[in-house]
């Protein structure tokens, strides 16, 4: 387990802000994009890549690397931003979002950019793929871990629960899921659209070791994210309570920013909010 000191926390806050700024930058370039989930997951993704996972931008296929599976593939703008920030590819690629043949499709394609492990987008696929990775890594005697980011709306897909059962059956204690519980999905409040509660008990009943955190608190994210397995011979899941569109005051916790077709005025507001945050944390 790693406890962040204040300097490390500030650094990760700065990374997360850069991710948020680049998410907005890509949506500017492409005129529209999945905003809300990319911003609710930005802190988790920043912490994963800059503190929790072993990855090497100079050697993306490194056999001993940790794997990241973005099951909720529509949050990929945050993934593109963090990979660019780490140096997997040149940041200028971000400005191609939305253009013909861009390396940044609206859901990630592992053959278009280094650092992307899976093609996701259709929901309810990521956990099975991650489980297969986790079994394969164990078979090879590697201590690499597999990290998965799922949406809470996505949990209505039954295939997730197939994967949850199998991951527990195979005692995949090298597997950690973050549920980005921003409580909104495209058509409304997640528990009203299709109730998944009691979420904690549900994962527990499937044989997982569960923790619940504030998904914007970088200290909590790192402390728990570096503490797996939470229990030996069990997969781990973190229910991360987040705010959809976190960081943009006009969009936070509002359902119509799941997919954002921004007006010039909104872009201005977004820049104001993110620049103000930047002034507070020194970038």
């Amino acid at each position: 387990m790693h406890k962040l000191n204040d300097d490390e926390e500030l650094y990760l806050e700065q990374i997360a802000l850069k991710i948020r700024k680049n998410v907005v930058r890509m949506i500017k370039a492409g005129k529209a994009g999945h905003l809300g989930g990319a911003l609710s997951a930005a802190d988790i993704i920043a912490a994963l890549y800059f503190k929790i996972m072993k990855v090497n931008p100079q050697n993306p296929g490194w056999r001993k690397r940790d794997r990241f599976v973005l099951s909720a593939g529509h949050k990929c703008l945050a993934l593109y931003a963090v990979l660019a920030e780490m140096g997997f590819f040149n940041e200028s690629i971000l400005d191609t979002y939305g253009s013909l043949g861009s390396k940044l499709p609206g859901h990630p394609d592992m053959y278009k950019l280094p650092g992307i492990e899976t093609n996701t987008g259709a929901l309810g696929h990521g956990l099975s793929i991650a489980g297969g990775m986790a079994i394969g890594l164990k078979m090879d005697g590697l201590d690499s871990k597999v990290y998965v980011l799922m949406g809470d709306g996505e949990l209505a897909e039954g295939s997730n629960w197939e994967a949850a059962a199998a991951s527990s059956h195979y005692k995949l204690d090298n597997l950690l899921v973050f549920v980005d519980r921003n409580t909104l999905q495209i058509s409304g409040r997640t528990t009203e659209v299709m109730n998944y509660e009691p979420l904690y008990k549900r994962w527990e009943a499937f044989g997982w070791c569960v923790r619940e955190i504030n998904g914007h608190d970088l200290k909590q994210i790192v402390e728990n994210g570096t503490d797996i397995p939470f229990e030996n011979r069990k997969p781990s899941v973190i229910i991360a309570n987040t705010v959809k569109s976190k960081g943009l005051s006009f969009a936070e916790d509002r359902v119509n920013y799941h997919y954002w077709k921004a007006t010039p005025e909104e872009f201005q507001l977004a820049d104001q909010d993110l620049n103000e945050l930047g002034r507070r944390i020194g970038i």
Partner: protein
Amino acid sequence: MSESKDPRKTFGEALVEVGEKYSNVIALSADSSSGSGLAPFKEKFPSRHLEFGIMEQGVIGFASGLATTGKIPFVVAIAPFVTARPFEMFRNDLGYMRQNVKVVGRCAGLTYSTLGATHQSLDDIAIIRTIPGVVIINPGDPVEIKKAVHSAAEHKGPIYMRIGSPAMPILYNEDYRFEFGKGVVMKEGNDVTIIGTGTVLSKAFDAAEILEKDGIHASLINMHTIKPIDHDLLIKAAKETRKIVTVEEHYLHGGLGSAVAEVLALEYPAPLKMIGVDDQFGGNGPYEKLLGLYGLQAGQIAETVKEFIR
């Protein structure tokens, strides 16, 4: 034809052979291990045999993830439950991700003749044929099954292989050479070309013999690879005999007949007769009788060919 062999048992034996050859070959079962012929593999390589229970969507995703770590997963279960059921997983997690996974649908076609349409698979080739980059193999005899399993392990990329369940007549010798994407001319003739595939190749074979006795010289092609289909051989056949007849234990729509029609219509139009199951759910009853219901017995095929070329 004298000897016959159980295709699932044959598959299982072949998988043990490739398991011995390649330590990264693993087997994934969806509560179908013994029924899929996996028992010998499980016994020989217990740690490389993974059971997933009746988890027919999830097992495809797990196979995809395993392939990312360099494993060569063979996923084996009843044909509709590894094709129609998890279609999106097949498309995205195997096809789109270009994963080195081999999916084997067993008891395909009308095999589950008495169990009815839920367990029969008359659309698997049609469904999987829409996925870019997936090779579809439909072996026509036990020797070909064995060779195809070896080739599948050596080929890098997703494969769908289809096998039946009733004992298959042995049509080839052990020295038979199998090559993906290359149809095999089993008999030469000038009057008509019969193209058979998979479980009913032997029926097409018998039909060609019946026709020969009746003075009709049919050419016979075994089209074991449905995708990519052997364009050159199809064009050659159309040029040489003009008339083509396809024989398959599958829907007429989307299977071998469709694949052949697509090539001929665009590249060398020729009269085509397709024998298979028309637009309906499969019936129920004894297997051989069910084949007869859809005109797939050798004598019926011969009659259809005669009528077609008349």
